[in-house]
Structure formats: C-alpha cells, structure tokens
C-alpha cells in the first residue's frame, strides 16, 4: 500500500511539473500597472521568516531600554552618600541645614550631627556644630591626615560657635581662625581611628567625633561600618539579572541578525577569588547555515536543503566557575568557564530546498525538540564595577562553543555576545 502511494505520489509529482499547460503571452503591462498602485496588500502572502519584523525590533529596543533603567534604579536606591564596600572610610554628606542649637538642646529628633571634641589636652576649644549647610567628613582607615585638604574645603561652609555660647544661633560668617588651626586638627587626626558605639544605635563615635542618632543613618553610616571589612568573611551567595546581545553562527558562516539573552543567575563565592555560578536564561538566537550542516533525519523534511535561516527560543542553564584574577576595592576583573545546557522550546527554520519537488522555500517549526544537556562550553571574561556596598554591574563578553549538534537539525551553533548584569551580594 505504501509502495502504491509512493508510486502514485511520484507520478503526480512529475505530472505537476511537466503537465502540458498552454503558456499564453505574458502580460507585463498588467504587472507594471499593478506595481504602480500604492497598496497591494501582499504582506501576508510574503514568506516572512527571513525578514525582521517590526515587532521584533520593538521588543529588542525594549530590552535595551531595560539596561539603563535598571542602572538608574540601582543608583537611586543605593544612595549618593554610600561608599563602596571595602573603601577606606565612611563619607558623610549633609545637604540640608541642620537644626539650631535650641532644637538640639531640647533633644529634637534626627537630622543632627554633633561633633564633640573629647580629647584631653587638645588646644582647640570644644566645637559644637549648630548649623551647617554642608558637612563632609572623610575618615581614612589609616588616619585623617590624607584628607586634610578636603576638610579645609568643607569646613569653610560650617558655622561654628564656641561651646561657651551655646544659645547663640547666629551665623558666624567669620569664624575665629584659631579654631581651625591646622595643628589642632592634626593632633586629632594623628590619633588612631576608633569606631565605638556609645549606645545601641544612637551614637557612633569616630575618632572622638560622635555622630548621633539618625544623623549617622542619614549619612549612611550603619553598624556595618564598625566592622572591619578585612575581617569579614568573603564567602556567601550572590544573585542578579543579566541581559545582552547574542550573535550566533553555524560553523562560522554569516550572522543573520542579533539575538539576545535575558535571565537570572545565582552564585556562591568560596573566597575572594573563586566562585561558582548557575542560572536560568531565556535565549533567542538567529543563525544561517548551508544545508549540509542540517541533519534532516529528525526534522521530517523530504528534500535536500540548500540553505536555511533558523530562529530558536530556548532556556539555557549555565554552570560555570569564576575566578577573579584582579580584585580592587570597587572593581574586579574575572574569567569564567563552564558548561551550559540548552532546552529548546521552539525552533523555526525557513529553508530553501531542492529535489524531486523542484525548488521550494518552506518553513518548519518544532516545539520542545531537544534538550542538549551539558553540550556547550562557555568561556567568558569580564569586568565588575561596584555601584553600591553590595551591588555590582558587570560587563562580560562570552563565547559558547557546542560540543555536539544543537536542536532538531543537530547543527553546531556557536555564539558570542556580551552579558550586562547586575548582581547583589548576600554576604
């Protein structure tokens, strides 16, 4: 029966190609006339798999738009007053006027910074800040002296009143220069840095300078500042999101258009340099190939493929080891290597075929065709930039090389691209 069907099909196939239809004179004028018409309504009948739809372009632009949006949100939430992790000292910036001495005396709530010189034998008088337009203190882990010039620049904005005249709230445009004699500061600054908590959360004393109550919080000084960063454990989990363009090619043939990767990753840092990562990515890849690299045995195609353009959507599960070969206070360089799995969700092929049916351009779509477990080697190198105490953005160029064929056609699809990611550490 099957043979009969095949014979019959062959016969009809030849009939379809060779049947003796009279070919009348062609009507080029009619075709030219229609070409002049403004609208023909032919978009739906045009094979469209080869072209980039405007919807795809919009989607891609939307994804690109997410990157600056995420960065802006990150910078906003991390706050301008915070210092990067591991940086030598807290930075306190006040941009709003502080309350008057009266309100301080009455124990008015937050938004106050009180600096009290508690060092015995200090030649300079006690200083109490009653009002300030800006207070900026930079305390170095090794001492204040490095920042002396910066302090001088900041101090000229501060109005001081001697402690003997606490009720005075008038602005002193010309403070006594002796109060700010360099020797008196240096005598303070030469002392070793000490961070002590006077009460649970209310006052933090930094080198004899106390930051009271929520002023410390406002300024971004938390209890974490008290801990020595060097003593803190480097291991712990981190997680983040990433997005980036992807270029895919089969056997280094031409790249048709950019795809993308989008997803989340989690990692565990064993020490300062070594960590492991995994995640879940949604990939869209576009590629071109000559027919010889497409294995049509699984695809159910009955003819010789001349060339094809493929699009695939898939989940990717990477498993990588990361090594930070250059670590700095606010940026790192790293390399990463590992292996990935592709879980194909949808493959679409627009192909040009030839054979007993004559030339043919077709489309085939396959859903959930293959799971290529641990079949892609991934190598990348990147740069991490700290944008908060625990948050980093990373730029990570990568290449992915298949160990064997990917997808229903078993094609060796290589990829290269750039991950742009944001990670947050839970240490």
């Amino acid at each position, binding site marked *: 029966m099957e043979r009969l069907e095949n014979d019959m099909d062959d016969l009809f196939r030849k009939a379809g190609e060779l049947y003796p*239809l009279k070919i009348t004179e062609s009507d080029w004028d*009619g075709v030219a006339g229609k070409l002049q018409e403004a609208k023909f309504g032919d978009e739906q*009948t045009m*094979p469209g798999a*080869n072209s980039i739809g405007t919807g795809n372009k919009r989607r891609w632009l939307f994804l690109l738009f997410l990157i600056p949006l995420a960065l802006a949100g990150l910078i906003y939430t991390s706050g301008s007053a915070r210092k990067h992790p591991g940086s030598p000292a807290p930075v306190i910036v006040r941009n709003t006027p502080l309350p008057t001495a009266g309100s301080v005396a009455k124990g008015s709530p937050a938004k106050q910074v009180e600096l009290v010189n508690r060092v015995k034998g200090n030649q300079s008088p006690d200083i109490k800040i009653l009002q300030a337009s800006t207070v900026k203190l930079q305390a170095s882990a090794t001492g204040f002296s490095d920042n002396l010039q910066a302090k001088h620049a900041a101090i000229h904005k501060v109005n001081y009143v001697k402690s003997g005249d606490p009720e005075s709230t008038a602005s002193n445009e010309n403070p006594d220069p002796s109060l700010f004699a360099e020797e008196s500061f240096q005598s303070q600054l030469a002392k070793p840095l000490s961070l002590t908590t006077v009460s649970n959360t209310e006052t933090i004393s930094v080198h004899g300078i106390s930051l009271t109550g929520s002023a410390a919080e406002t300024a971004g000084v938390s209890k974490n500042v008290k801990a020595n960063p060097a003593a803190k454990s480097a291991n712990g989990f981190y997680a983040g999101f990433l997005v980036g363009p992807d270029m895919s090619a089969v056997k280094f043939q031409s790249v048709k258009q950019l795809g993308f990767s989008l997803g989340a990753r989690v990692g565990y840092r064993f020490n300062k340099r070594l960590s492991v990562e995994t995640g879940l990515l949604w990939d869209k890849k576009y590629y071109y190939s000559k027919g010889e690299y497409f294995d049509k045995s699984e695809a159910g195609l009955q003819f010789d493929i*001349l060339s094809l353009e493929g699009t695939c959507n898939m989940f990717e599960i990477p498993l990588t080891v990361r090594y930070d070969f250059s670590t700095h206070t606010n940026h790192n360089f790293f390399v990463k290597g590992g292996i990935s799995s592709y879980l194909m969700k949808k493959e679409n092929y627009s192909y040009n*075929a*030839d054979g007993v*049916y004559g030339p043919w351009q*077709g489309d085939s779509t396959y859903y959930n065709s293959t799971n290529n477990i641990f079949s892609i080697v991934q190598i990348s190198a990147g740069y991490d930039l700290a944008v908060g105490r625990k948050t980093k953005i990373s730029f990570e160029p990568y290449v992915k090389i298949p160990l064997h064929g990917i997808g229903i056609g078993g094609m060796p699809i290589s990829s290269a691209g750039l991950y742009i990611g944001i990670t947050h550490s839970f240490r």
Partner: protein
Amino acid sequence: MLYERFYGYALKIAFRYVYRYDIAVNVANDGFVKIFRHIERFRYEDEDYPERLMMAWMKRIVINTSIDELRKNNMTPEIGGIPEYVWEEPDNSQKADQLLLYKELISYVKSLPPMYRIVFNMFVMDGCTHFEIADALGISVGTSKSNLSRARGILQKIIKEKEEAKSWSV
C-alpha cells in the same frame, strides 16, 4: 528578464491550485507584483544556485497567492471540466503519451474538494511538510494528514475506475 523567464513556471503552479486559467494568469501576475515589490527580501548566500533559490521563493509566493484567491471565493469548487484550450497542443514526439498521462492526472486532481486538493498539491507536488500546510491553511497537522489520506484515497479510486473503464472498452 525575470518575468518573461519564470512566467510559465508561475502559471503552472497557480493553475494546479485554482484550476481556472484566467484566474491562474491573474494569480501568477499578482505573484510577480509581490516579488518585484519585495525583491530586496530575496537573499541568497549560495552563489552556486541563485536561480533555484529564486524559483523556490517564487513557488512559495505563488502558492500563497493561490490560496488567498481560493479563500476569497470561500474555496468554492469550480464547475465543469477543464476546457481544452488551456492545454498545449500535443506534438508528435515520444513524450506525447507521457504528457497526455500528466494532463489526465492533473484533471483527476481537479475532482478533489478544494481543501483536499490544496493539501495534496502542497504535500505531494510541492514537497511541503504537514507543519507548513497546517500553518498556511490554518488547520491542524492532524487535519492536514487526514485530508491528504482522503485525497489519496479518492485519487486511487478514480485511477482504478478509469483503468477499469479502459479495460472494458478494450
């Protein structure tokens, strides 16, 4: 010129679907209009056979245009047989018998219901997959397979009846 060179090729494809010569001519011309309007979409990486790729692209467009034309008329079956004037005059070559056979087979296909005919045409004569047929016609893959099976059954029956009639006449 592209049009002159491939006009016959396009017309033969269109006629197998619509089975009315005047409409087939219109469909072929409409197909060329689409081709010329979107010629920038025709891309070929393989310089060895650009003509085959052009024919493949053209076939696809003409089939789609033919299906659109049939949809416009709600797939209404054509009334009557195929008029003789659409056929090329047989010559005296050795192929004449074969061409007559092909002409006969194409006539049999016309007797199929339009949906069966399209599926049969696309699968058997044009090499489409059931996925492609289902996508083009907005039917399921199962329906495409079932239509093909029924079309084959009808054609086998027709061929058998014709052969029996011939044997009786002999």
